[in-house]
């Protein structure tokens, strides 16, 4: 087995536990789209063309509420703006790649793939290490398309009462468990979470995610600077 394929498989393996909550999320998206009156082709098209759970849900919400194109586009942009930070974090490891690879990897760069590959890329120096991100991304893509399709078929069979959407915040919570032990991280988490919750209705165009994230990063910048000074 060659090295690239090995790393690709490692990406699949590492991201797999994170796919469990993606399954209900994808199904919910499909079910929701059909309930809101979109046809199966458009629903499938959204998952293939946009390929981003949060963006697609926002799209459904706003489009079915009759929002203008401008609002829909800017909201999707705001929801996506966290990807600027993912890109910034990963670019160090990807900057030597060919443009075609950067394009492919960008298409597959979703939260779950970022979360597992970020630590892999940091700790490995193999020149093919981007295959880890590729493997994780392709896994997310495949699961997302299959579950969207299942959601379209199931339509409204799944009861709302199960509260499966709650699996989404739990996934992200699970990704943070290692950070709960570090004081600076805990402060950053609380700052970002509080601003997002309080700003949810006040900050326009669903920009609360990026506003809260940047506030958290600024706090991290200040706190780490203070701590470095103390250690000098």
């Amino acid at each position, binding site marked *: 087995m060659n090295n690239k394929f090995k790393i690709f498989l490692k990406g699949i393996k590492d991201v797999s*536990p994170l796919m469990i909550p993606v399954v209900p999320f994808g199904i919910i998206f499909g079910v929701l789209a059909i309930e809101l009156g979109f046809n199966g082709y*458009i629903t499938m098209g*959204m998952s293939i063309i*946009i*390929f981003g759970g949060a*963006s697609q849900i926002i799209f459904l919400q706003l*489009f079915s509420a009759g929002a203008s*194109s401008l609002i829909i*586009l800017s909201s*999707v942009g705001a929801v*996506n*703006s*966290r*990807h*600027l*930070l*993912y*890109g*910034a974090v990963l670019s*160090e490891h990807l*900057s*030597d790649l060919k443009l075609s690879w*950067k*394009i492919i*990897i960008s298409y597959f*760069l979703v939260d779950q793939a970022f979360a597992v590959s970020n630590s892999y890329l940091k700790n490995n120096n193999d020149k093919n290490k981007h295959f880890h991100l590729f493997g994780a991304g392709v896994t997310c893509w495949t699961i997302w398309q299959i579950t969207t399709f299942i959601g379209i078929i199931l339509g409204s069979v799944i009861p709302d*009462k199960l*509260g499966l959407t*709650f699996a*989404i*915040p*739990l996934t*992200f*919570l*699970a*990704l*943070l*468990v*290692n*950070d*709960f032990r570090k004081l600076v991280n805990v402060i950053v*988490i*609380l700052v*970002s*979470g*509080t*601003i*997002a*919750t309080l700003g*949810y*209705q006040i900050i326009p165009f669903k920009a609360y*995610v*990026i506003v*809260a*994230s940047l506030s*958290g*990063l600024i706090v*991290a*910048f200040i706190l*780490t600077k203070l701590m470095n000074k103390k250690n000098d």
Partner: protein
Amino acid sequence: MTSWFLIIYCGLITFFTRFSMIALLKKEMFNDRVREVLSYVPSAIFPAIIFPAIFLDNAGSIQIEDNPKILAAFVATIVGILTRNIIATIFSGLASYWFLIFVV
């Protein structure tokens, strides 16, 4: 037809937010300080997704009382800290959530 165009535009926006930094930033721009601050990106972004999903109701108002999601998230956090296991964290959260809404 308009919805197809809108979906394609949304797809382009999504792609370019992912692509732009990867394409623009160069290795040389990174030093230890930049790396240190960027290591807090997950801690800065994920809570912005987690907290509203737990503390807000469907209408977007803050709901503290009678909200099983808070307790379920708390259980998941404790399990996460103790086990450091992603699947255990997710399932303990879902299980306690269902226990609270269906049994209690």
